[in-house]
């Protein structure tokens, strides 16, 4: 069931019957088995589920990093599955931001160069004012000329977010952005994401397994076995935790029987 939250307009991201299977023959693994979802502009969605539920796969295919086995992915008014690698990359670069869980940055470049990388590669002239704002937002104004090796995990994540924001994308995908961070830094990063949604009308889709992180979102989508099982507006951290636990028990029961 779909829920409309926030401003109505055509969705920033839409997936239709998205399926992804790895391998072939008897060892084929179905990561996604036909998922339909709309993500609207200016919303913060948390995608959750036990491991193997296909949440990372959903994110990667929706962001154009991977090709689905079948189904469609729409970013705004552009359908992705027909595009060539080059066109896909160009679209990704200008309209999608992606933050990985780890290893986000090019070790050879400074923080500033890492943030500018998508701009430089697409040949777009950087908007200095916007970039200054972004750097202020992530709180790294004094670390601009350091290398990633000199930063902590949380600082590296913030650089990655800054890089994602630099191109003013339509949507930002985050894959477990706070997974490797301590609670304080995680809270900072999540607050940053929240503010970006609230102040700049960004769309953020975040995969997480942490109910506290999910509590920052407007909408929580739960996957299991490659399908959506729950899709609800922000219910609060405890409710989410209960949902996940129930899900886990259900899986245990299914296994035992």
């Amino acid at each position, binding site marked *: 069931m779909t829920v409309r939250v926030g401003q109505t307009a055509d969705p920033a991201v839409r997936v239709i019957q998205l399926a992804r299977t790895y391998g072939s023959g008897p060892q084929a693994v179905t990561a996604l088995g036909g998922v339909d979802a709309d993500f609207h502009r200016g919303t913060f969605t948390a995608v959750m589920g036990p491991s193997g539920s296909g949440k990372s796969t959903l994110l*990667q295919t929706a962001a154009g*990093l*991977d090709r689905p086995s079948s189904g469609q992915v729409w970013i705004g008014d552009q359908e992705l599955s027909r595009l060539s*690698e*080059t066109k896909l*990359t*160009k679209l*990704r*670069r200008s309209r999608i931001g*992606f933050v*990985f*869980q780890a*290893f*986000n940055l*090019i*070790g*050879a*470049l400074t923080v500033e*160069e890492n943030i500018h*990388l*998508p701009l*430089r*590669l*697409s040949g777009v002239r950087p908007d200095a004012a916007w970039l200054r704002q972004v750097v202020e937002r992530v709180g790294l104004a004094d670390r601009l000329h350091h290398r990633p*090796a000199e930063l902590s995990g949380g600082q590296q994540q913030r650089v990655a977010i800054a*890089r994602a924001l630099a191109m003013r994308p339509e949507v930002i995908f985050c*894959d477990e952005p706070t997974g490797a961070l301590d609670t304080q830094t995680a809270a900072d990063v999540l607050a940053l994401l929240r503010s970006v949604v609230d102040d700049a009308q960004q769309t953020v889709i975040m995969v997480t397994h942490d109910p506290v992180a999910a509590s920052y979102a407007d909408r929580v989508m739960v996957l299991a076995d490659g399908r959506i099982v729950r899709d609800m507006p922000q219910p609060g951290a405890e409710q989410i935790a209960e949902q996940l636990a129930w899900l886990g028990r259900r899986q245990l029961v299914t296994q035992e029987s």
Partner: protein
Amino acid sequence: MLMLALRMLRHRIGSAVATLVALTCGVMILMSMGVMVESGMRFTPEPQRYGAADILVADRDMTIETTEFGETSTVTVDLPAGGSVPVTLAERIGQLPGVAVAAADRSIQAVVPIDETAQGALGHGWSSAALTPYRIVDGDQPDTTDEVAVDVRLASAAGGQLRPGDQVPVLAAGSVQQYRISGIVDRTAAGDQPPALFFTDDHAAALSGSPDRAGLIGIVLAAGADPAAVTAEVDRLAAESGATVHTGTERAGLEQSEALMAADMLIQLGSVLGGYVAGLVMFVVAGTIGLAVRHRRRDLALLRAVAATPGQVRLLVVAEVAQLAIVAVVLGIPAGLWATDWVHRQLMDRGFIPHGFPFDGGVLTAVAVSVATVVVAVSAALIAARRTVRIRPTEALGEIAVEPARSSVLRLVAGLIALGGGVTLTMFTTALRGQAGLSAALGMLFVFVLAAALLAPWINRYAAQLLGPVLRAVWGDSGYLAAANLRANAQGMATVLTALVLSVGFGGSIWFLQDNLDRQAIAQTRDGTLAQHTLMSAVGLPASAAADARELPGVVAATPIRRTSVILPVMGGAEPFGAQAIDPDGADRTMDLSVTDGSLADLRGDTVALSNLQAATLGADLGDQVEIWLGDGTPVTLRLVAIYERGLAFGDVTLNRETVDGHTPTNLDDEVLIRTEPGNAEAVAGLAGLVERYPGSGLIDTGAVGAQLATDLALSAWMNKLVIGVMVGYAALAAANTMIMAALTRSRELALLRLVGVTTRQVKRMVHAEQVGLLGTSLLIGGAIATVTLVSVVRMMTGQLVPYVPPLGWISIIGGTTLLALVTTIAPISALLRTPPVNSIGVKE
């Protein structure tokens, strides 16, 4: 993009340095070889002896028709003895309008004893004086048979004792004669030609032994004559006698000069070995760059994930490599010029080229080498990047280092074809001597190494499986890990294996090949020469010398030998081969050719004896008729009467002196082998008397001749060894490069092992075990390739089944490779192991 490329290069300094080193050394080597070849090709000397002759007519080569595989083709072969033209042609040319002088030129080896020394000189007929030109500075030209005009250089060497009217003894055509000096002559130009003596034309003709024919005809044009018209007329006349016309820069090629031979040698060396050197350099550069790109997979995958299109990633890789290539060119070309300088001096010091031979040019070579290097480097990068740009960006998210998919079937098939090709080559290597033999062996080696390179991943995998139990037994748990690593890294270690196999293969085969052939030649000479003395002369010995020697008391046998060349059909063409013309009377007592079929005693009339190698090549059996050409191009059909084994020492072809009489420049023998009864003092005294009777001759102990041969062979081997040494060194450098690169990328893997519970000591043992496994495999395969190459070539050329490898050779190959492998891996690994594992675990490779 360029900036990005530069930054990423600086970050991954290890692989950048490795690539740079490989490229720079490659540029240096190619530059050296290129300048040598360019110098040889640019060498266009001015004619010295024939400076005043506008047109030269000579018959220097021969065209023959051969039928091979049903197709008829014509082949032109340079006549080793130079060929000759009829003297009547000179007379006819002399009558053409516009011709001032048409002289039939002859060169007669002569010796003028001055004080206690013997001065070498060349004798000519007086009409040849106009060709240089030589002018009279004192006295007059020779008019009678016993008059001679003497070069001013000889006169000054005698300290002014030679003046017109004096008597001077001249040793020529095997005998000494007294001449009256009619005048002193001098030439206008300088040069390194030997001093000249001018007899009358008739006397020179008589001395030369073939009065009707001359080496060449020199023509001086009259003033105001039209060169083109006269040349055309001369050409018409010459063509009737089968001779060719030479003008302009071609004239210098007709002079015998050290410098020309040096130029020829340089060009030959460059073209024969240069091709292989270039191939090796390209191979190593491609492998190093391919490996460097492979190690950057994760970096490039991240770039793809972030923002870079496949085209941009390709461009990045190419930009990196292009930058490195340019730096390599900038560093390598000056280094190459320095190396060329060193080689130049070495060649001059060792007498390969005459002093003052110019090594110039270099600009053309520099441009060619730069372009070639950049093209090869960029192509290698593109090929390596091709795989990389197809990886999904999601690979960047993967936690483990990803080993790309298995090698294509195409590679496997290509590798097997190469292997088959190598085996076929081994079976079909035909009898090729000297430089050609060396290049054939190199070719076989390359094909085998190519097969090893293509099949490397499979070799690694199966070797790991086979070695698994051994490694486990010796190193325990470390061995278990090592075996697993070898199996898993089969793909990545392919380049390392190839580089090691290349070094071992080269070092083990070609290096020792030269030694083997030389040893065989020396051994055959030593064993086959039964005579104790050799009578030699700089000006040749007449037939009476051998006859006189036989009559001496205590002399068992004396065999005169004339060294000449013959032209044999080879593989659809024809090549000159060295031959000896002997008097078979008693020859089996002075020389033991190790005759296997027939007998030397039958060598009378139109007969020939061949080495077993030549007999096999020509497909001739005892009693067959063999068609060959003598040194001056005369075709002869001879019956094969003997086949012998000691071809390396005595030449592939042994003829009867009568067969070559009249077809060699002089009818004189080069040496006489004399065997005496051992311990007979009378014989020795008698021989001394023989020497006196033939002035200009000397008696030499045959043992000393053998020693001289050894020295000469060692000298000429130096050149080949230098080139091979450079190639082996470069291959070893490539191996070292790739091993260091591979070692440095393992920081995370080693950190993980240590965190899991493997101690530092166990990690080191694991690396040792891996290296032993890799080393063992490459020594085995490289050794097998080297053995096959060496054995087959040595057996082909000498009949020996077991090639000679000095013990030091074994030790240095095995020891050197082991040292290389250990130092280039253990050292970087030890450096990596010093950082605490917790710090390295978070860093990507």
